[in-house]
Structure formats: C-alpha cells, structure tokens
C-alpha cells in the first residue's frame, strides 16, 4: 500500500511538472496579445499599465500621453476604418458600450470586439483589471489601482458645496445619475445638484438650474459668461481649461486628478 501511494504521488508530480513546463513554454513562445483602442480613456489605461507595445492602433482623439498620438489611427467614435483594423490583425478591439453597432461585423471574424462600461469609478478599476489580465500586467494593475484609491481617499473636502456641472450652456446639458462625473463629484465630498436625474447627460430646464441655487457652476464648453453671471448672481463660475476638460471627461487612470480638482474647489 505504501509503495502504491508513493508511486501515485510520483506520477501525479511528474504530470504536474510536465504540464507546468508545457504551459511555461506556450506562454514564453506565444505571440503577445495585441489590440486597438477606440476610446482615449482606454488608451490612457493601456499606457499606465505599461502595455503600450500591445497597442497597435488608436482613435483620432487619443492624445494622452503624447506618444499615443503617434500610433496608427483607425477612426473616431462614428467612423471606424474596418479595413485598417483587419490589416493590423489585432486580437481585440476595445471600445465603449455605445458603439456596439459600429463593430457588429467583427462578431464573425478572428478579431474580438470588447465593450467597456464607464458609469462609476469602480468601473474604471474593473476595466484596468480586465485589460491587465489580457496583457499579463496583473501585478502592475494592483499597484496602479491601490495608488488611485489612496489618492482619492486622501482628497476628500471638508466643506461640502453644491456644484452644478454643465456640459454645455445653451441649451443647458448637465450630468445625471448614470454619468461617472457625478460619482467623481460625490467622491470629492461635494454634492452635484443634478445627481437625482435618471440619465447620462440630461438637458435640464434653466429654471431648475436657477432654483437649485448652486454654490459653484462648473462649465465645460463656453465662450461667453455674461448670461451665466446674470442667471447665477450668487455663485462662483468656473470654466475648464482644455487639459482639465480632458482629465475630467476621461474615466481613465487620471481619474484621481479630477477628484482632486473638485475637492480643491
């Protein structure tokens, strides 16, 4: 009985070793997974993970970090150059959920489209983990995520204010419950006055905006502040610069910077 047990253990160890060597070899000699990104925030995540060698194509809007704009361009949110993607032979196409109809034709090819959801900051962590798993950068992703979490938890303001965030002024388009910017404002300790609206980017009536009497009005795109000053005589009005706009509108690894931006208001 003793011998039999010993033999069984030995055989199982040999089998394990054999499979281990096999998997190691297949890992070492396998071609690395490649992908293209159609969204600036995903491009930023790939660069933050140090997996930029796997990235073979980007969208025309990807401009951070600067090296990203040197990669092959394959289109924007509406126009995707499908032929170019097929020539680049990536394993995956990364895109936002809202662009599923564009990439439907890839369902039947070798190239697999993957759609990401960005509704909260937790979604950002999930997306970082997912991309890290595909590109074998799991350790780095843990470090990255814990760094972001630490920065966000440290930057909570002590004096909560009411913030009205306007994507556009005329007509007034704001952010609703489903937008990740609402989550960012909540994490920064402030209150978004439109956080109860059940939509991504609702068009709100001007009366509601005035009635909600915000302490701070943050404006995304604008070219004239006169009317805003008349509508909100008691509020501070802030217009975002190009860089701030990019940081706040992209749910990527720089998300902690936008939390810091709001917490300093």
């Amino acid at each position, binding site marked *: 009985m003793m011998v039999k047990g010993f033999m069984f253990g030995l055989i199982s160890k040999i089998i394990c070793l054999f499979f281990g060597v096999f998997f190691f070899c297949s890992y070492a000699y396998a071609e690395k997974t490649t992908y293209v990104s159609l969204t600036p925030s995903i491009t930023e995540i790939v660069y933050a993970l140090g997996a930029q060698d796997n990235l073979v194509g980007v969208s025309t*809007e990807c401009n951070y970090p600067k090296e990203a704009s040197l990669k092959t361009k394959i289109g*924007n*949110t*509406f*126009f995707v150059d499908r032929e170019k993607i097929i020539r680049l032979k990536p394993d995956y196409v990364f895109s936002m959920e809202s662009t599923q109809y564009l990439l439907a034709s890839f369902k039947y090819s070798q190239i697999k489209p993957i759609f990401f959801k960005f509704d909260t900051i937790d979604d950002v962590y999930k997306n970082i983990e997912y991309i890290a798993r595909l590109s074998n950068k799991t350790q780095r992703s843990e470090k990255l995520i814990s760094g972001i979490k630490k920065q966000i938890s440290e930057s909570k303001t002590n004096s909560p204010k009411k913030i009205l965030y306007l*994507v*556009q*002024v*005329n*007509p*007034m*388009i704001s952010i609703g419950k489903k937008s990740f910017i609402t989550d960012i404002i909540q994490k920064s300790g402030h209150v978004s006055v*439109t956080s109860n*609206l059940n*939509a991504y*980017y*609702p*068009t*709100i*009536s*001007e*009366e*509601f905006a*005035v*009635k909600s*009497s915000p302490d701070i009005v943050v404006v995304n*795109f*604008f*070219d*004239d502040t*006169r*009317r805003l000053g*008349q*509508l909100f*005589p008691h509020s501070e009005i802030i217009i975002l610069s190009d860089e701030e706009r990019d940081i706040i509108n992209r749910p990527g690894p720089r998300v902690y910077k936008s939390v810091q931006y709001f917490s300093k208001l």
Partner: protein
Amino acid sequence: MRKNKIFSIVILLFLFLGCFYLSVFAGHDGFGVDLFLKSFQLNDRSEDAVILELIRYPRAIKAIVAGVCLALAGLFLQTVSKNPLAEPYITGISSGAGLGIVLSVLFFNSANYSFFGFLGAMVSSLLVISFAGFRKFSITKLILVGLSINIFVSALISMIILMNSEKSYSMLYILSGNLTENNLVSDKHLLLIFFVILLFSAFLIPKLNFLRLDEGMVFSSVKHKNMYSIFFIICSALLTSLSVLAAGILGFIGIIAPLISKMIVGQDFRYLFFVNIFLGASLILFADFLSRTLIYPMQIPLGLVVAFIGAPVFVFFLTKKGDILND
C-alpha cells in the same frame, strides 16, 4: 357671416392670451401677478425674479416672434405658389440655417449659434431665389432649386455631425429646435425688427387677395405679377430667417398654421392674416409650456413638442373641415 369671422378672431385672441399666460406664469413654479408687478423693480435679485426676467419673458417673446413669422411666411408662400404643401423652409432655409448652426458650434463652441443660423438662412435663401431667376421667374423652378440645395446641404450637415463625435450630441439637440439666447441681437432689437416687418406685411393684405386669384385674372388686373411673387418670396425668406434667429429650426408650424386658419375663417386675407398670426403664436407658446414642464427638471426640444401637438390638431381639423381647402 362677417360677425362670425370677427368672433373667431376674438376667440383666437383669447386663446393667444391664455397661451401667453401659461408660458410666462404657469409651470412647475407658478407665479402670481404680484411678482409680475415686482419684476419691474430692477434691483430685485431673488431667484423668482431672475427666472421671470431672464428665462420666462425672453422665451415667451421669442416664441411669439417665431410663431408669427413662420405662420406668415407659410401663408405668403402657399398663396404665391397656390400649393397647400408649400412651407417656409422650401427656399433652402432650413438647411442653410442648419449649416450655419453646425459650423458655429464646431468652430466657436458658440453661444451665438442662432445668429449664425440666421446668416446661413439669409445666404441660402437669396442663393435659391437668384437661381430661380427674376425675368424668367417660375415658382416650380424655385421649389426644385430649393429642394436640391436642401438635399445637398443636409448631406453636408450630417457629414459634419458624424465627423465630430465629441460635439455631435449638442449639434443634434440644437438642430431639433429650441428657443435660444444670443448676445449679438438683444430681445429689444429682435422685437423692433419683428414689428417693422409685421406692420409692413399688414399693408400687403390687399395684394395678397389679388394673388390668390387665377393667373389670367391676375394678369389683367395687376401689373408686374412676377415682381409681386418675388417680393413675397423674399419677404417670407426674411420672416423665416428671423424665426431661426429666435427659435432655431421649427418645422411644420409654417404648413399647419395657415391651413388651419383657412379652415376657420375661409380665404379672405383681411381675416385670415390675423387668425393666422394668433394661431401660430399660440401653438408655439403652448408647445414651449409643454416642453419645459412635461418631464421637469429635464426639457424636451421645442421642435419635437411642436410636431407632437401640431400633427393631431391638424388631422382633427382636416377631418372636420377639410373640404374648405378644395376651393
């Protein structure tokens, strides 16, 4: 008969006043008349005063301007072309305005997009009218040239929207028609231009009554018939451009307001003119009231609400009194 017609003008005047009341004082936050009186004191900076002075009054004024202009422009064009399907945007105005709006949003992130829409509307309509010719003018040529320009420029607009994905949402929203603010033409100037054109049009009522007659009779009774046609078309282009300045591109009102008023008072322009402008203004004022209260605190684009209430009202009148239009 004459009494009936005056009676229907009075009814429509009250309808107009009722819609004006809804648009200014009713809504999610109702206002009393005391605030209306208080709002003339300029130092009042409370929220209610701000809402009344900076949001409700300008909206109501613009709704009236847009409604009256579109209804009148539609009436002129339907009379000149003798075609009930003629609408104010037929001379390439909607696409010209759309192109102006889209370009201004694209290049300037502009809050003044309605002014650029106005410029685009003027340029495109003048272009179409000059293509239709002055000596050898024909209304068929005008409509066909307008149609071609509309199709060409609409394709251009769609192209611009699709190529600029980050601004496409706001472009689409703006194109669906809204009462807008701009800094270049203030409400006072808008009202001034509006009243000048309105007064001018009122003096044209007798000429409109002539144009309604058959070709042969018009030729024997009015000299320069073509000149009058061209004049009315330019006039309607001006009116429509003014409506773009006030409210963006609002379809449908220009067709239904003249037709419904014809069903109410018949073809005599002395009555038709007034019924038409009151009806156009009331429809847009009521649509504005609905657009900002139906899903408060969010807002439905005005152009869509106009379509939602316009189509059923029009079909109702067609089934009741549609045979009047056959005259």
